[in-house]
């Protein structure tokens, strides 16, 4: 009882801290460098679509409170195991893995830009991943005490630098360049997918429900305000970029925030952003490596992944998941994530997979409203089915307009398509052979809730 102590302020702080990562700044640099200040409109569209999905997630959380598996469990109750495995287990896990890889690349690129010389950036990334692999296998979270501080330091740095740049009061030279590079509809909306990446992860706030003083009000409100605060922060950064950084240099940079820091405040700004970026990237890679291995474990408990993910070593760490995740980060980085183009391509693929899981979350709301119209919901998305439908359409539109170049877009769709086909094959056989349930039959909410208990898998293993 005494645990309930988190207020709206803490929810917002956590929400902003979880969403803003150093890789977001790369999207910001690429987007703003591409079309100039109209990227603010692109960001606003992406922000609204994210808010629509977060409202749906808040309603699902009200219907199935305190679940650790999050979106996967919601979708199990909404659309059944086949789609859940494709979108949530596959897509969502893959998204997080790619996000961790991109954070690793940001670390490598940042470190290399300062001290690298001729050493390729991925070498630094590999050293970091190796170090975090060892600490995680030993059950030691080296960053647990500082990760909040690091996240807030990054946010505070961005706010200060954004405002200084917007007001034109930096010590660097103000650049004379057009604010608008492209303002036609196609250019502005054509990179929504990139802007979407600036706001993903708002749903990570959901686990705070347990510790919230007034969860009914603070969780949905906190998620929305986090998004709006992030939007405001990014708007200041874009305006600051316009005043201090050449657009073409910005879009070509793998570390736009460091470039901006240098142009705004000289060497002090450069070192400031360098330190903050390095710490934030290390913290993010560590967090994702650790949380993903536990998510894999959770998915395995509810029979959506093989049982070996539940194995732990002497230190209690789910070692198979940790090793797989670390290997994935490593392979993605070694095979080339050091150029802006490859990272932006990866971000686009990632955004589509994430958007698909967001579309399914909106769909879950509509389906569960039909199935359980009278179940008590402490939070219900207002205006009937309109907002979840808009969330689906908005996410669909962002997938459609993931890149302005048709050629690149088709290539992105191809990668996503191959991924989905591979996941579908796995999902089909897994559901048929292991889960032994109809592909599209949703689980009852009571069963999804029961799965949360450790005893569920024990009891079901004994018999099955």
């Amino acid at each position, binding site marked *: 009882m005494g645990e309930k102590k988190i207020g709206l302020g803490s929810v917002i702080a956590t929400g902003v801290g979880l969403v803003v990562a150093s890789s977001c700044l790369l999207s910001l640099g690429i987007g703003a460098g591409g079309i100039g200040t109209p990227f603010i409109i692109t960001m606003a569209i992406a922000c609204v679509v994210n808010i629509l999905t977060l409202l749906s997630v808040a309603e699902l959380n009200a*219907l*199935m*409170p*305190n679940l650790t598996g999050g979106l996967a469990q919601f979708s199990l109750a909404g659309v059944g195991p086949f789609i859940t495995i494709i979108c949530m287990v596959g897509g969502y896990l893959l998204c997080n893995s790619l996000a961790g890889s991109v954070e690793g690349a940001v670390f490598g690129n940042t470190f290399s830009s300062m001290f690298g010389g001729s050493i390729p950036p991925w070498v630094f990334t590999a050293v970091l991943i190796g170090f975090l692999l060892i600490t995680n296998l030993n059950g030691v979270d080296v960053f647990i005490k500082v990760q909040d501080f690091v996240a807030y330091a990054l946010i505070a740095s961005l706010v200060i630098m954004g405002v200084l740049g917007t007001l034109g009061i930096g010590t660097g030279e103000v650049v004379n360049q057009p604010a608008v590079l492209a303002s036609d509809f196609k250019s502005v909306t054509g990179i929504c997918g990139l802007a979407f990446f600036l706001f993903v992860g708002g749903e990570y706030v959901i686990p705070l429900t347990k510790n919230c003083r007034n969860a009914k009000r603070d969780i949905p409100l906190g998620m929305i305000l986090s998004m709006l605060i992030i939007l405001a922060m990014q708007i200041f950064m874009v305006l600051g970029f316009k005043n201090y950084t050449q657009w073409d240099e910005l879009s070509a940079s793998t570390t736009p925030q460091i470039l901006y820091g240098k142009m705004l405040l000289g060497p002090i700004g450069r070192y400031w952003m360098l330190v903050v970026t390095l710490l934030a990237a290390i913290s993010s890679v560590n967090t994702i490596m650790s949380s993903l291995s536990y998510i894999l474990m959770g998915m395995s408990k509810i029979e959506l992944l093989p049982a070996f993910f539940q194995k732990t070593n002497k230190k209690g760490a789910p070692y198979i998941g940790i090793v797989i995740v670390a290997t994935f980060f490593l392979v993605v980085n070694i095979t080339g994530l050091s150029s802006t183009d490859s990272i932006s391509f990866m971000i686009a693929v990632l955004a589509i997979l994430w958007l698909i899981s967001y579309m399914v979350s909106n769909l879950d709301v509509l389906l569960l409203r039909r199935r359980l119209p009278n*179940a*008590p*919901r*402490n939070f219900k998305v207002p205006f009937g089915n309109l907002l979840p439908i808009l969330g689906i359409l908005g996410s669909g539109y962002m997938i459609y307009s993931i890149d302005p170049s048709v050629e690149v877009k088709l290539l992105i769709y191809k990668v996503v398509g191959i991924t989905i086909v591979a996941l579908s094959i796995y999902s089909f056989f897994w559901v048929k052979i292991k889960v032994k349930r109809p592909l599209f039959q949703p689980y009852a*909410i*009571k069963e*999804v*809730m*029961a799965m949360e*208990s450790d*005893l*569920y898998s*024990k*009891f*079901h293993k*004994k*018999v099955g």
Partner: protein
Amino acid sequence: MRVAIEELSKVEIITREAKVSELTENASRFGITGMTIYNALGCGVQLGTQEYENEKSDSLRLLSKQVVMVVLPTREVDSFLDFVEKSLYTGHIGDGKIFVTPVTNAIRVRTGEEGMDALKEGTLD
């Protein structure tokens, strides 16, 4: 038979002990002037089977529950039920059952007041 002028309803809520305090803290918002809570043993359609168990129990397993009984004006019942449902809801089996029945009259023995007067602070004292 003496019948109260104002329509009254009795709401009986069977739920987990842990949830009762949430109800008692906020009950005064709905014109509730008194409340009776008693311990009970019982089971529902699952016959006491725990939600994580694979098969339904063959024999009855009686679980420890609490029953909250309140009488309130019928016009307040809908909003009270909405509040109770949202307070008790966890999505898990065993959240509870609510029974609503009409009350034809209530009498305060000491003063003879009837209906809502018997439930409110006495005016005859």
